């Protein structure tokens, strides 16, 4: 896996608008962004309503994913091109999701919605009609997803990469700075975790930095051991999906998992170790 296998630029997407076998999908938490204007021919997926179980804290299951993609007119042979707001956080999260359920051809638009907007490219409010399909998903690929017991066991053994902001990492804040801070869980980070904020992997326009810059960021500057297994986490697992995408898909590291339970789960667990302040 390398950058050219997983990332496409805006020119490529513009040339594939409406192309048979290609489905452009906008994934946002804020679905009003899609409604106000989206890339022509793009459909939308709501990361929460469509991708989360409505009752339990978990993904939609395999049948739910199959139903979703069938209803949206996505077939197993389609190339899915994902993009979204927040520097592609939720698009990267959806990408990880598509990979978990075994979709063969998935791409991410480099820079996402922001780059497309900042370049003043065309947006439309027309919603495309797509015929239903009969999508078949694979069982979840456990090699891509870390759960809490594995995370606790990884302390001091594997790379733990905390991709939240330094203020969240040290415990000064427990949510990103554009969200209220009233959550009840403890602040801090998982002991031995390296703090590499997701934003360091992105340019200001939302595109990913070069391979050499990314390698330098994680390996040389942060001390992530590329020879070890790695678990990335943030607060709910979408910023860490962005980092999972960088490490696993762009840089091609083999054993990288996303811990989607992330800090909202870990910081509420009873009895697990928490470290405050700067990383050690």
């Amino acid at each position, binding site marked *: 896996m390398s950058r050219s296998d997983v990332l496409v630029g805006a020119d490529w997407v513009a040339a594939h608008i409406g192309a048979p076998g290609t489905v452009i999908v906008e994934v946002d938490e*804020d679905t009003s962004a899609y409604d106000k204007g989206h890339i022509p021919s793009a459909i939308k997926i709501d990361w929460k309503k469509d991708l989360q179980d409505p009752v339990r804290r978990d993904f939609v299951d395999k049948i739910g994913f199959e139903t979703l993609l069938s209803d949206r007119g996505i077939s197993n042979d389609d190339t899915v091109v994902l993009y979204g707001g927040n520097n592609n*956080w939720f698009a990267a999260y959806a990408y990880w999701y598509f990979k978990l359920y075994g979709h063969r051809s998935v791409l991410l638009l480099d820079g996402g919605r922001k780059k497309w*907007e900042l370049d003043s490219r065309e947006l439309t409010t027309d919603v495309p009609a797509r015929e239903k399909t009969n999508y078949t998903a694979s069982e979840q690929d456990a090699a891509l997803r870390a759960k809490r017991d594995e995370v606790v066991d990884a302390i001091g053994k594997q790379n733990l990469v905390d991709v939240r902001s*330094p203020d969240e990492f040290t415990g000064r804040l427990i949510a990103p700075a554009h969200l209220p801070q*009233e959550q009840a869980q403890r602040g801090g980070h998982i002991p031995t975790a390296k703090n590499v904020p997701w934003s360091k992997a992105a340019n*200001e326009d939302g595109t990913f930095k070069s391979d050499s810059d990314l390698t330098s960021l994680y390996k040389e500057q942060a001390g992530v051991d590329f020879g070890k297994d790695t678990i990335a986490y943030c607060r709910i697992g979408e910023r860490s999906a962005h980092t999972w995408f960088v490490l696993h898909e762009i840089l091609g590291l083999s054993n990288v998992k996303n811990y989607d339970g992330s800090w909202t789960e870990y910081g509420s667990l009873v009895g697990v170790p928490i470290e405050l302040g700067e990383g050690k």
Partner: protein
Amino acid sequence: MSIDSCGAPAGGVTITKDKAGKEAIIEGQVLRGDGPLSRGYARLLGSDNEFVAEVPLGEDGGFRFFAAPGEWVLRVLAPGDLRLEQEVTADIGQVTKVEFLV
């Protein structure tokens, strides 16, 4: 506004007269000659221009951050290579208002 995700609040942020309570709030609006600038992004930067957070501008050109107290830089990005910056100070219990004029 969703509080259980890391994403942007729906449609950006509409400026209100919320009490800050225990929060250190920075909020503002981006205006151009004929009204609000609604297509663009506000970024909150910390020391050494380190990225902290980003939100899309609301329909009214508004944005809001729940920051830690301290010194911050606000940067606005918009189509046409528009790039504006202001330094702000946030304090607990206060709503720091910022206005950008294009």
